[in-house]
């Protein structure tokens, strides 16, 4: 190889490197909506075969390795469901007495979580069900343990959920006894290993005992009322004598959850 040829090869290498770095930085600077749209288009076209392949692998794994666990969970659910007709009748009677409207019913879609290998994977999950199954942007995602997040992007056979670990996540919540309301959001500076949320907006004069369960309040219209979010772990900080911020241990772990349910509530416009 001549010297000039070697130099031109080295120059072309540098050009390719700078081009790739520039494209990467441009991708990072894209508005969220554009990035999600681009990713969604590629997932639905060029990457559709690999998403299909991984979804099949997850389903195989579930059917082969988790059959006993699923059977036990089904038995427990069947046992718990035996008391439901009585509760529903009682609930309808009480609602009738108070002249309350009945709750809007919504469907549910089960989906496999197609975990990836990146270090920030717990912030956004790829799910094996999409618009073809009725999934729409803004639908809440829950696991058997509690709230996982909400759908931010869908294509025909897959969708992406933003989890509670994502810095943009927030949800309106209420304590189980209904005495206090607030907003939960990820703890700034906490890693996925810390697995913590913050309950903000609680007046200084009010106190939430450690161990209290926190549920979605249903106020913002994104999450239906009553989805378990987490348990109070203690006071994180006090804001100048007018607000207490509590640490919350979430019930669901996005990094480990393998199956989720997507609530088919109405589509929600996400301002991102």
């Amino acid at each position: 190889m001549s010297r000039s040829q070697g130099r031109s090869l080295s120059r072309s290498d540098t050009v390719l490197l700078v081009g790739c770095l520039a494209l990467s930085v441009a991708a990072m600077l894209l508005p969220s909506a554009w990035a999600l749209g681009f990713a969604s288009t590629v997932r639905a076209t060029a990457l559709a075969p690999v998403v299909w392949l991984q979804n099949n692998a997850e389903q195989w794994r579930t059917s082969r390795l988790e059959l006993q666990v699923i059977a036990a969970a089904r038995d427990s659910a069947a046992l718990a469901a035996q008391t439901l007709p009585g509760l529903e009748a009682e609930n309808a009677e009480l609602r009738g007495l108070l002249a309350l409207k009945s709750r809007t019913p919504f469907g549910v879609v089960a989906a496999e979580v197609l975990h990836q290998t990146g270090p920030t994977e717990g912030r956004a999950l790829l799910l094996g069900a999409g618009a073809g199954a009725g999934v729409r942007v803004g639908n809440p995602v829950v696991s058997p343990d509690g709230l996982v997040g909400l759908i931010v992007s869908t294509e025909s056979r897959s969708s992406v959920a933003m989890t509670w670990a994502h810095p943009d996540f927030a949800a309106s919540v209420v304590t189980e006894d209904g005495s206090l309301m607030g907003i939960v959001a990820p703890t700034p500076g906490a890693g996925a290993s810390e697995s913590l949320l913050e309950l903000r907006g609680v007046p200084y004069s009010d106190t939430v005992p450690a161990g209290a369960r926190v549920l979605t309040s249903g106020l913002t219209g994104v999450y239906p009322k009553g989805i378990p979010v987490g348990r109070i772990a203690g006071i994180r900080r006090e804001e100048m004598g007018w607000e207490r911020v509590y640490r919350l241990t979430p019930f669901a772990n996005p990094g480990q959850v393998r199956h989720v349910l997507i609530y088919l509530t109405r589509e929600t416009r996400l301002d991102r």
Partner: protein
Amino acid sequence: MTFDKRARRRRLALVIAILIAAHFYIRPWIASRVAPDLLMLAMMLVAIRSRPGVAAVAGFLVGLTADILSPARFGAGALASTIVGYLAAYGRAVFFPDNLVVNAGLFAGGVWLRSLIVLLASGAAANELAGSLLVWVPVQALTTALVGVVVVVFFRDWLAIRLDE
């Protein structure tokens, strides 16, 4: 291009195709966040057999794929894998990766460096960086290196590095 060189490239492409299929079909059976990153391994295998520019493009494509499949911070994976791919190819001039231990070190180092750059580009806080880079990422780097060594040994005739490439 000689017939021998073309055949070697075809065999490398076959190994890469097997790794990509395994990444999406076999890896999901390992229910853990420390499961080996076979896409990254495939990229490193290409990178140490290519010119730095080609390795940077391969890294960019693998990183972009990761970003598309898990868009927590779009572009961070592409940036990280581009840098790792380029450095892996550039490093070939410094240390010749024909030794198994050197190969394993390259694979593990690549996964660790990729994760470091992704976390930094994603705005991870200091304790998240520490927790990930000292606990989870090293284990994932080790599992990836282990699988990489098995692949290199199993396909040693196909993956032999030639100095004239």
